[in-house]
């Protein structure tokens, strides 16, 4: 259970990227975050695992106050929250398996990371996750030798290594073609349904929202302008979210 209360983020330049945003996400839900480019979707997702420090407001996760967590506590919180990125954010020159194993870093003793050692179980686990997303044969290739869709699968496998209770996906399919987009979204859906992992996913295409999301929140210039079921987005709501001149395509 994630609770976001009165969250506000003002960047150093004075841009108010989030303006008093409040919402809850029940355990196991697939929540889509929509909004125009620049409306604050990425900022919101990054505030939840404190990649960005919010200016004001509170985030409670499983009863723990994320906004007040110490670095030590933050490590324990972050390792339970997987993150998937639009540009995959793999370490290009490392092998695929190393990228996946990186998902365990929150669980292993930092002293052993110095000598680049992971426990044997983690190695097996990494291979299993790669199998799960269908690219076990690529394990020992360099990450930048993979296609975009394959790289995003590695990104998902890395998140899965964390045994996450929640996954934050920031436009996970925005740089992929529609067919690949669906296959990546199906992986997220499968993780959400089978493992009961809560998913927060920012999306640009409403057809994906309708197809995969349980619930939607919409941001406009940092403010929460809609919260409800995907089917509730009618033409009026659509104009509220995307502006008066927007045309519905999908």
């Amino acid at each position, binding site marked *: 259970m994630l609770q976001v209360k009165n969250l506000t983020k003002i960047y150093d330049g004075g841009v108010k990227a989030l303006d008093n945003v409040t919402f809850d996400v029940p355990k196991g839900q697939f929540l889509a975050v929509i909004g125009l480019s620049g409306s604050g979707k990425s900022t919101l997702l990054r505030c939840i695992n404190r990649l960005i420090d919010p200016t004001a407001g509170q985030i409670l996760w499983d009863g723990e106050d994320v906004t007040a967590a110490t670095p030590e506590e*933050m490590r324990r919180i972050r390792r339970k929250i997987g993150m998937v990125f639009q540009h995959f*954010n793999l370490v290009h020159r490392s092998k695929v398996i190393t990228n996946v194993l990186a998902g365990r*870093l929150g669980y*292993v*003793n*930092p002293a052993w990371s110095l000598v680049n050692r992971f426990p044997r179980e983690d190695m097996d686990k990494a291979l299993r996750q790669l199998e799960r997303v269908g690219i076990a044969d690529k394990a020992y290739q360099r990450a930048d030798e993979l296609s975009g869709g394959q790289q995003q699968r590695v990104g998902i496998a890395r998140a899965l290594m964390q045994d996450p209770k929640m996954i934050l996906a920031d436009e996970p399919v925005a740089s992929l073609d529609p067919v690949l987009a669906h296959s990546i979204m199906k992986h997220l859906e499968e993780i959400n349904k089978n493992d009961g992992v809560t998913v927060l996913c920012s999306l640009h295409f409403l057809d994906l929202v309708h197809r995969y999301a349980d619930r939607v929140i919409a941001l406009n210039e940092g403010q929460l302008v809609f919260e409800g079921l995907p089917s509730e987005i009618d033409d009026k709501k659509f104009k509220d979210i995307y502006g008066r001149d927007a045309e519905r395509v999908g």
Partner: protein
Amino acid sequence: MKENNKKASLWKSLRVGLAFLAGIIIYAYGFEITKIDLEELRSETRQQSLVRVTRALAQPDIFQYEQESQIFTAPVYVTCPAGDAVIAEPDTSEPYVIVTPACAEVGETVTVEGFNFFPNSSGPVRFVPGNDPTNVVELGNDTANADAEGHFVTTITLPNRPSDDVQFIRATMRRNVGAPQFTQTAHDTWEKIIETVFLALLATTLGTILAIPLSFIAARNLMKPVRSPLTSIALSTLGWPLGIALGLFVVNAVADFTAPFTSSILVNIASVLLVPVVLTFSLRWALPQDDVASPPLGLRLGRLVVLFVSALIGFFWMYQLAGLSMNVGRSTEASLGSFAFFGRFLVQLGDILIVTTPAVGAFAAGSVFGNFLGRVGQRAAEKINEGTVKIVNLIASAAAGGTVFGLIGWLVEWLYQIGRPEYTQTGPILVGAALGLLLAIFTKAKDTLPTGLVIYYITRTILNTLRSVEALVMAIVFVIAVGIGPFAGVMALGLHTIVSLAKLYSEQVESIQSGPLEAITATGANRLQTIIYAVVPQIVPPYISYTMYRWDINVRMSTIIGFVGGGGIGFLLQQNINLLNYRAASAQMIAIAVVVSIMDYVSSVMREKAV
């Protein structure tokens, strides 16, 4: 509008004219100052010496031949005797010399002809006084060159050595035999060029090893997010010197304890082999691989104790290793023959280990204490109420300020020997404490301060200052510190390499992709893990490339660092130039050119491979 434009263009041309004038004045003054004077170039003596030097440079002193010579003389009378000058017929079966005329006055020119000498041989034609056969008189331009039949003709001017007795003209004709051999100069040059290359290698290695950690703390993107509350900073500042002092004490105690056991090779070998086994087990237990739940306090304390003991054992091991290296080196030095340098190398390695172990220990203990107290401070600032934190801050910050300024004062005292404690001891301590107190008063108790940025700026400033000192100047300083020789050169080039590489490296760290950094941070990795898994893979290729580039520069630098006594071939080159021994200098310049271009090629190939 048009008017305006015109004005602008007039003003513009005026400015161009002024700039041109200023340029002319600057260059005129530059000519004056640098004493550019082509007249000097045209003068007779300059040209002559230029020709001589250029010719010598064109004939590097690299090869020499065994020579065989034929020495034969012809009688001559200076001045002509009263009667006829009776000259015996020469033996034509052997080489022989004929002087015509056979008698002449002092200062007259005679023709000297030689027959039957070695074909194509050459050598001097000289005058030997009849009454003093050991005295050979040089006659100026007197070299004779024989043709393919062994025949030569030359003219000489008779010297002012009049005598009634018969006197002699002597021709010494030489020719090369056998294959060419290296000259002594060539041998010396070879030896020194090897020294030069290794000087550059050691300086580059030393510099690279130390520049890597420095480059991380000189990178803005890594340091900017590092913020900590004042409590943490102050306690950490106190922890460092405390830890360093304790570390030195403990390591020295270990050294004293180890000393009696280092002399026997058997004990050396046994401990060098056994200790790692023990350490593996103890570290496995004390540092569990996973970090899932916080263990109970008792277990944590137990692990701390084991870690401490492991550290002691580790230092014991380092001293044993040093002892082993030295013992093996000493005992094999005699039996290795021409590989004796390997034995000496082992001894030196052992010595280096012994010298550096206390430094390593002090640094490790310092960082452990600094880190630990810093964490205690962090915890305190997070968990304890604001009022208490404020009081802790006031005390700790004052103490930290006093300590830092006191240490600086101690350094100043040590450097300048002022001998007035109110300036170098009590004064600084009081000032530092006051500054610390002020800082604690004016910052909110729980606010975080940009520690990372402060460290970043300090590191950058030191790097930039040191970088602006030329390696050659550093070499002068080190020559004074450690004496003339390649060691001074290694230190100077090494230091310069550290600072310039740290700068170049840190720029690479600053230009890495931030995405992977973000992704690794999001997994819960701590700072160290983030650097190892997100930063290091991205910077390996540019680091290799810069290291090769630096190695290239160091080879060039090490060729001239000898000019100031820093070892390498520069020393030899400078000596030969000063002795006007241009043929030897030429050999050294050729050696430098060859080595530098090989290095250039090799490093460019390796750089291509790395990227």
